[in-house]
């Protein structure tokens, strides 16, 4: 009986070992299945979000391409306009003056601009100043500082732009000097010896411009020393510049001619009634007589 018991014991041990291994397999495989289900659930969520990303980003390529094309067109337009109006060299200098070093990069549409040495153009660009002056605007010369605040206020652009121009002309127009009045009724009458072009510098102007301006006043020969407005007996027999050349004021309201000026003479003008040759009515009008003929409107007006 001993061998039988021994065989039974060994078989039982084997069965227990196999059962233990199977139990381990079941436990671990169940745990792995649980983890794999979690992974599957997570991947389903990822796929959903990736689908959203693909859907949302689908039109980006076309939209960005369109935007880039538009911006490229804008850059080409501005660069072309700048080069066309200022010339290649000045254009590079202007860009380099605004953004130091930018001139070396050149213009994208003009590769040859990289080889141009940028001229030094600071706040004053003579050509631009002349262009503004030609357009009837006073040129804002040297009023802006690239390092300072922006000159143009977005909300009050026109007012800010006025600051570019001389102060007195913008905010105090009533303080502008009046236009000069000439003639016998002028507020200030200067002796002829001081009326040789320009104004006579007064003390204020001398203080403002410097003592050199006094030279002009001192350079004119006064009347007591034989100037052109001195009495005739003090002048030379044949003064090189007499009154017919220099001119003089009469100092009187009386007319210079015997008859004087007849203001009503214009009312009796016969240019509208007697002007032009008498053309025969039966003759064929010639083109060369068109300018000489009286205008019908003038004839009717005279009648």
């Amino acid at each position, binding site marked *: 009986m001993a*061998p039988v018991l*021994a*065989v039974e014991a*060994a*078989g039982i*041990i*084997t069965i227990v*070992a*196999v059962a*233990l*291994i199977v139990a*381990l*397999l079941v436990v*671990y*495989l169940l*745990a*792995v299945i649980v*983890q*794999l289900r*979690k*992974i599957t659930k*997570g*991947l389903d*969520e*990822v796929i959903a*979000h*990736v689908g*959203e*990303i693909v859907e*949302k*980003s689908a*039109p*980006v390529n076309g*939209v*960005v391409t*369109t*935007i880039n094309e*538009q*911006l490229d*067109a*804008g850059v080409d*337009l*501005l660069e072309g*306009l700048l*080069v*066309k*109006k*200022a*010339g290649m060299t*000045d254009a590079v200098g202007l860009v380099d003056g605004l953004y130091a070093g930018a001139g070396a990069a050149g213009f994208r549409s003009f590769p040859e601009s990289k080889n141009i040495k940028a001229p030094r153009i600071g706040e004053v660009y003579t050509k631009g100043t002349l*262009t503004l002056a030609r*357009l009837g605007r006073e040129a804002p010369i040297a009023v802006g500082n690239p390092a300072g605040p922006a000159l143009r206020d977005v909300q009050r652009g026109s007012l800010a732009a006025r600051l570019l121009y001389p102060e007195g002309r913008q905010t105090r127009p009533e303080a502008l000097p009046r236009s000069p009045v000439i003639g016998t009724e002028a507020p200030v009458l200067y002796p002829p010896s001081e009326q040789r072009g320009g104004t006579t510098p007064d003390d204020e102007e001398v203080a403002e411009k410097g003592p050199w301006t006094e030279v002009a006043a001192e350079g004119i020969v006064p009347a007591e020393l034989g100037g052109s407005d001195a009495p005739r007996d003090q002048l030379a027999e044949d003064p090189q510049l007499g009154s017919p050349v220099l001119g003089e004021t009469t100092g009187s309201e009386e007319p210079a001619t015997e008859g004087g000026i007849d203001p009503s003479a214009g009312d009796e003008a016969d240019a509208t009634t007697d002007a032009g040759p008498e053309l025969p009515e039966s003759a064929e009008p010639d083109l060369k007589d068109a300018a000489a003929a009286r205008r019908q409107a003038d004839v009717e007006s005279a009648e």
Partner: protein
Amino acid sequence: MTLWWIGNVVLFVVVTPVVVYLLHGVFTAARSIVPSVEKIARTAAAGSTDLDATALLLTTRDQVTETVAGVANYGGSLDVILDDAR
């Protein structure tokens, strides 16, 4: 009989630990994938949210087009006003 007992010893001492080691490795690997998948899911969700502003690109495109058209009109006016460089 002796061989049977030897087989039982091998079964307990060698086969069972190997099986346990392999199963534990598979389980550990499967469990480590789960946090990574969860992170990917959160990242994808955040990326999708970030792309919500993509629709504004259509507005940007229209505004850029209008701006460039304005620049073209302004440049065209300057082209008429200013003389060309000689």
